[in-house]
């Protein structure tokens, strides 16, 4: 009997396409002797579709045709099991419901990676891969993320944060505050997005206002932090859970622009949609392992694990660091990706763990979390209200 794994991809997020690339890659690397892969594609409109064609990246070029080849589905819980039901069943053309044993969300960005899909699977009672609702949500709000890490003594760059509404009401006050507390050059970021969408680096007051307006168009909350100019970016992936986690080899992405932009991150070496280029994070130019002294690398790995535990992570997370070469190579955690592009498999292959094994371990971690939960509930399966045998009602007498 194979374990039925529902791989979720797509979703109503700006990183829809990136998710497709990550997920298709993963589906091709999964151990099919052990796992039966059931892709569930969430369209930009939020419909759930399933079908084997979803395992082929080429099919995604024509979304209308793809939709025709798939079946609309829905997940339901019945008799303690989670079933995928086909919504287009006809009288004489019925498809059997498929039992899902574990969910594997490979989606990026708001409306999915931020705890949304995790909450949905949680309600269904389906074990799922990766961070739970809390950790996912933390990873999605950079301001709250910084607050939590600061409390756990993990180094982060201090920031000034405000909502779009506050900015529009107190335009000048906020700009002054940023200038005074941080000073140029400054980085402006939307608080709640993954990837690098809406991020800009500014050198003066004029650019600052413009950059904030841009960021505000992507998110209701924006933050400003010091731009480290003599900068190296270092990424580290962490695998495991709070009880037991390990850090991968470090990578150093090679920057083509001031900041690793959306284009850099997901379309490097390609012009738009050619499938050659659709390899996601895996094909980005980088130094792997990053060229760092042993002690520095170890320090970064330790901080990465500390950050992972502080946010109570699970599964695989990529922790992105900024290293200030002008200040003694001091490192700061920049952000955490709770579902990193390509699941950061390339970092694990460099650390001696094949992608197939990584996926296997991720799925087993999902079951482990489920077991820990069951353990806590172990003797609660009897309904307290039905305990009549040794009557607590006797206390009335």
């Amino acid at each position, binding site marked *: *009997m194979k374990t039925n794994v529902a791989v979720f991809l797509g979703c109503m997020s700006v990183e829809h396409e990136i998710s497709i690339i990550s997920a298709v890659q993963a589906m091709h690397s999964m151990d099919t002797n052990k796992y039966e892969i059931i892709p569930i594609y969430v369209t930009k409109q939020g419909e759930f579709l399933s079908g084997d064609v979803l395992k082929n990246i080429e099919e995604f070029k024509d979304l209308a045709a793809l939709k025709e080849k798939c079946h609309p589905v829905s997940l339901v819980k019945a008799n303690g099991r989670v079933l995928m039901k086909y919504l287009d069943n006809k009288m004489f053309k019925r498809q059997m419901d498929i039992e899902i044993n574990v969910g594997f969300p490979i989606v990026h960005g708001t409306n999915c990676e931020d705890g949304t899909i995790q909450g949905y699977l949680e309600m269904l009672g389906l074990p799922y891969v990766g961070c739970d609702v809390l950790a996912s949500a933390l990873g999605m709000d950079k301001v709250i993320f910084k607050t939590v890490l600061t409390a756990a003594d993990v180094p982060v760059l201090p920031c000034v944060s405000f909502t779009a509404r506050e900015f529009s009401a107190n335009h000048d006050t906020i700009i002054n505050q940023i200038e005074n507390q941080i000073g140029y050059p400054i980085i402006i970021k939307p608080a709640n997005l993954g990837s690098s969408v809406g991020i800009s680096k500014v050198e003066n007051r004029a650019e600052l206002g413009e950059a904030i307006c841009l960021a505000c168009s992507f998110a209701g909350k924006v933050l400003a932090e010091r731009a480290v100019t003599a900068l190296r970016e270092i990424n580290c992936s962490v695998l495991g859970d709070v009880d037991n986690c390990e850090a991968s080899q470090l990578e150093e992405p090679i920057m083509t622009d001031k900041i690793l932009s959306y284009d850099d991150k997901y379309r490097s070496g390609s012009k738009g949609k050619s499938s050659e280029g659709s390899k996601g994070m895996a094909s980005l130019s980088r130094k792997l392992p990053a060229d760092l002294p042993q002690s520095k690398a170890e320090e970064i790995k330790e901080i990465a694990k500390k950050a992972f535990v502080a946010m109570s992570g699970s599964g695989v997370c990529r922790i992105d660091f900024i290293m200030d070469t002008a200040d003694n190579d001091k490192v700061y955690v920049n952000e955490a990706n709770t579902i990193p592009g390509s699941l950061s498999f390339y970092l694990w292959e460099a650390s001696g763990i094949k992608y197939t094994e990584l996926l296997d371990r991720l799925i087993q971690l999902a*079951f482990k979390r489920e077991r820990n939960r069951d*353990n806590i509930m172990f*003797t609660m399966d*009897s309904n307290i209200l039905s305990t009549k*045998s*040794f*009557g607590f009602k006797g206390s009335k007498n």
Partner: protein
Amino acid sequence: MDIVLYISVGVIAASGLFALCRQLQMLQQSSYYPSRYWGWLKGAIRVRTNLALMGFLLFIGSAWPSTTYNRCVIFVLAALSLIRIKLCFSDRRKSIKKLVFTDRIKRTFVAAAVFLAALITVGILLGESSLDQNSIVNAGFLQYILFTICAFFSFIAPATCLVAWAITYPIEQMGARWYVNDAKKILKNMPDLKVIGVTGSYGKTSTKFILGRILNEKFNVVVTPESFNTPMGVVRTVRDKIQPQTQIFIAEMGAKNKGDIKEICEIADPTIGIITSVGPQHLDTFGNIETITSTKFELADWCQNKNGKVFLNADNEIIKARSANYNSVLYGTTETCDCRAENIVYGPSGLSFNIISGNSEFKVSTKLLGVHNALNITAAAAVALDLGVSCDDIAFAVSQLKPVNHRLEMKSYLGGSTLIDDAYNANPEGCLEAVRILGSFGDMKKIIVTPGLVELGEKEYECNRRLGEEAAIYADIIILVGPKRAVPIAEGVKSRGFNEENLHIVQSFAEARKLFTPMCDNNTVIIFENDLPDNYAG
């Protein structure tokens, strides 16, 4: 149309169906073995049985011929049947282990209902037919015969129960065979699944749950729920709970007759076995200890044949004597064991001890009460170590253990008192052990409520007497439920010079509760000891 007769017969039949519920409850508690059910039945003749018999005789005398006087009698009989229905409801309320409306019970009930309805329907059709009314075997007489049969089964509910069992038996067998094959197929499709069988006269349920909890640290585990330990219990667990990701299946295996364990092994196909104990439990069905031992060792034989391993309790002399023939791991408290518990410290808040296996030694602590649990934990730890669970994981899991319902389960009770609920314990040694736990509660007031030990064959008297002796030492107040086993217990109690004012013998658990409720305060510890299902409460 003889409306009065038809309605009366209908009401009487309906009351029969209500009365059937109590019989089905006992049939269910006898695991659907008519022999065991019969065993209960023989001892259960009561006032009400005699009343029902009188009702039946009255029916025979007055259902035919159809005079006005006779119809009046029948009508009164039907009215009295309504009282019977009322009694059935209060019976159900008072039961400790109630009838569970499983599908099988529903099928059996429907079979009984159809059987009675068929008798009535054919009777009515005959009466209304145009058969020759003048011949000797005329329609009215035939109707009378059918109604009398129907009345017989209505008044004598056990007869209906056995008929319904007989009607459904072939169907149940067919269904069961299909389920067994389905479960086997599921297990066959999972070549990587490790199956662990747990058997023993006592301690198997606790050991099973403890092992399940420990292995959960590393594997996806499925455990047969509650004290499911029959072939059908295993089949049901496999079909309902085993999932593709399951890595370990722990099956409790119970036996009341020779061959029972082998039968479960044929379904579950374990490669690891644990034998927790061999003792005189179910001696009445086994006959002698030798048969019990070889039945438990059917599990060891099976695992041996599959190149597996058995984990044996070396503290049990009978098991130890046989262990040499097997590829076994011995666990226990003695030096020679492969995995042993040492420095056992216990009190009202739990147990702690060291587990030593090979080169590793580590300390575990648990909230579970009772020294015997140290042995159950050691058994589970031995298996877990063998499967590669780390000492740290084992120690953590042990610290998280919670008692199984009604097995030395400590909770707060009436008037702030402390209850030790050990109502599902059936092990003579375990019962003595539980009574001794009272000793660790200092100068609190100690109350024991127990119906005594059952199903122990010829040793029953002896065991109950010893229970009495032990209770006299540790308890301040002793309440015995049901007069049958009270005799040997009371004898044991008195032999220790216990103040007889504090020894009470009551008829039912409800009565016991009336007695102890005013005694309970926050300086009281009360223990419910041993099996209290209805089967034996009387």
